[in-house]
């Protein structure tokens, strides 16, 4: 029984920072902090030496370490970067369980028998990790994953911590109880005078079960060295990604897309034979000069080989035409499936799935003619300015959730009632004048100087119309706390003598009146 739960745990300190630094090519001893919601989520050893710690506010961290490089925290990236490390470990010992990005466990019995001793197995593991560029990993061996991870965290100078079989309870006894328990229970036990895991383990198991419930009873067993969990080896995911390397590198888009054609077919065939369809792919293009361009592409239905090829082409061409050259020759293209689903959920009906499929095919045709951004769908989001309320996304992409959700929030200062049928993408300058032909202005108190009497839809003042009715100015003040993004504008509605209604705005930056929209 003991032999079965014997576990080797590999722990990689500061994995999120390590992953982010490796991705961005930052020097290993630079001070780096990952920021989440304005707080430090993780930091590099150099930053820690300067006093940066987890949970610190961004400003405070920057004050303590002036050369701090801050990066946004991305949990998905952590997991993705850990994947090759896991695959590397799997080449020397089978049956790896991922506990979280940066920590993984291996059942000890096999490797120990193969390498001769626990220390030899741990050394082999460290050597393997060293080859993959994870230089400061720690390894712990103990009964059960929890004790082994604690052993790794308290490892010796050789970065190996071994707790002898049956010695877990004694090893864990001096450690603080908060390591194993959730915050509420940890605080409660501290108030009851239980500070260490040893003291917690000394409580009678029945009483713990009765007083604190099943979760605490499980923790109690682990604290007592009876960690019943065994390592459940993961099934290595099937590899669907395709990589095409061009030697010599190609510098024309049509050449690259032709060269990728068979790979795209292979990619889709492999998925289909595993009874999967792919609804999202990630395309990575590496250029000869080492530049890496990556992007995720979604599909409203699922990808066919031609669709994958289209995405590669669009990523390469940006907004240029297909026969245009590239800035730097393309050395490799890699396509990875990001979202897959069982084919069963996407089965076509007996007579096809109705008109929407036809629409999709037609629109894809237009898209491959005009580019990905050529065909758009619209949703209404939040905002005060009319143009920023309309969210336009290319056909097949999902609209940004954050912006769609913001539509439900109140937007004081947004336009009530009637929405204008023409919203100018680029506002053009107009003139608004009083009877005397003087430009109408807005004073510091937000009042009009002079009554609008004449209006000209052109900047030079040609084609003057009489103003029949008007209202305003309505101030819109946005982000006044941010000097770069703040905006202060005044809006005005008017109807001219021909019955045309306009929405004008006066930018605080002194650009004069502009037409924002027209009710035509």
């Amino acid at each position: 029984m003991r032999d079965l739960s014997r576990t080797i745990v590999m722990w990689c300190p500061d994995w999120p920072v390590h992953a982010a630094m490796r991705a961005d090519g930052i020097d290993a001893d630079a001070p780096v902090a990952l920021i989440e919601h304005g707080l430090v989520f993780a930091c590099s050893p150099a930053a820690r030496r300067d006093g940066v710690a987890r949970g610190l506010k961004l400003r405070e961290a920057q004050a303590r370490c002036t050369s701090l490089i801050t990066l946004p925290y991305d949990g998905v990236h952590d997991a993705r970067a850990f994947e090759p490390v896991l695959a590397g470990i799997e080449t020397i010992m089978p049956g790896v369980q991922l506990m979280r990005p940066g920590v993984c466990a291996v059942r000890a019995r096999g490797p120990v028998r193969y390498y001769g001793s626990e220390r030899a197995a741990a050394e082999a593991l460290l050597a393997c990790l060293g080859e993959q560029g994870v230089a400061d990993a720690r390894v712990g061996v103990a009964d059960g994953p929890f004790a082994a991870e604690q052993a790794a965290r308290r490892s010796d100078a050789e970065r190996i911590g071994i707790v002898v079989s049956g010695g877990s309870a004694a090893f864990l006894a001096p450690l603080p109880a908060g390591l194993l328990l959730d915050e509420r229970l940890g605080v409660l036990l501290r108030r009851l005078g239980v500070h260490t895991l040893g003291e917690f383990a000394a409580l009678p198991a029945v009483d713990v079960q009765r007083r604190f419930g099943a979760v605490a009873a499980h923790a109690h067993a682990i604290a007592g060295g009876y960690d019943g969990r065994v390592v459940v080896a993961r099934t290595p995911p099937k590899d669907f990604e395709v990589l095409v390397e061009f030697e010599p590198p190609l510098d024309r888009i049509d050449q690259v897309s032709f060269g990728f054609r068979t790979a795209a077919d292979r990619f889709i065939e492999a998925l289909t034979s595993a009874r999967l369809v792919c609804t999202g792919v990630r395309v990575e293009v590496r250029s000869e000069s080492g530049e890496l361009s990556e992007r995720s592409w979604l599909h409203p239905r699922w990808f066919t080989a031609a669709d994958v090829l289209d995405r590669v082409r669009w990523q390469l061409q940006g907004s240029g035409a297909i026969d245009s050259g590239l800035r730097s020759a393309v050395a490799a293209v890699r396509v990875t499936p990001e979202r897959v689903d069982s084919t069963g959920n996407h089965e076509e009906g007996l007579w096809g799935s109705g008109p929407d499929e036809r629409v999709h095919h037609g629109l894809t045709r237009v898209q491959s003619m005009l580019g990905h951004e050529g065909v758009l769908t619209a949703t209404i989001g939040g905002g005060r300015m009319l143009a920023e309320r309309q969210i336009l996304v290319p056909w097949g992409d999902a609209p940004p959730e954050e912006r769609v959700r913001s539509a439900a929030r109140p937007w004081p200062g947004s336009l009530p009632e009637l929405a204008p049928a023409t919203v100018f993408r680029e506002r053009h300058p107009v003139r608004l004048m009083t009877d005397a032909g003087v430009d109408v202005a807005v004073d510091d108190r937000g009042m009009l100087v002079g009554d609008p009497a004449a209006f000209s839809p052109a900047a030079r003042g040609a084609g003057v119309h009489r103003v029949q009715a008007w209202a305003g100015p309505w101030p819109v003040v946005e982000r006044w706390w941010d000097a770069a993004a703040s905006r202060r504008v005044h809006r005005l509605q008017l109807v001219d003598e021909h019955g045309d209604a306009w929405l004008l705005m006066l930018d605080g930056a002194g650009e004069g009146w502009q037409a924002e929209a027209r009710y035509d």
Partner: protein
Amino acid sequence: MAAVAVSPAERDGAAQRVAELQSRIRGMQATTLESPALPTAPAIAAVLPGGALRQGAAYSIDGSSTLAMAVLAGPSQSGVWCGVVGVPDFGMEAAARFGIDLERLVLVPDPGAQWLTATAALVDVLGVVLLRPPGRASDGDVARLSARLRQRGTALVVLGDWPTSEARLSISRSEWSGLGSGHGYLTARTATVTATGRLGAGRPRSARLWLPDGAQAFRVDETAMPPRLQAVSA
């Protein structure tokens, strides 16, 4: 037979009259069989010749996006996919409020030189396509597109001139309500919408419409309708 002396002025007048009559005859002769109607908003149906949008027909609209939205709203509400080509300034929020379903609306704001090809590709799959042509299409292209429209049963709505349009809708005498001199805000408008039939023939039909009314809906302005004939006792 004595020759009747005809003055040149009279002769010109007669020629003009003949041309006018011929154009009326051409207009009244249906060139195609009656095609099925698309679901149309009642307000627009009151103006259009035939009382509905026809599948496979082209309509042109004189410079009013609201009127174009009113034309699209009817089909869109009943589940027809709509497309908008070459109108980068199309107000989405107005479209949504006027009853166009954004889930089934596709935009091609900048088709560039390929506008005709893009329109033709959309005509293949969508029910109604709104187009603002950035340039003039040749007669051959127009004929090909018309044939495609008839074949696919798609209606084309053009903002601007279109040679083969079934009817031309224009707007005149807009009256806005809600806005005073320095107070209020725009809430509604009434406008006279006039539809001229094919080739300028046929009597133009016009109606006073709310475009839109206070509830952001399109409807016929009943107050402006001519009084109906009623039977009275002798």
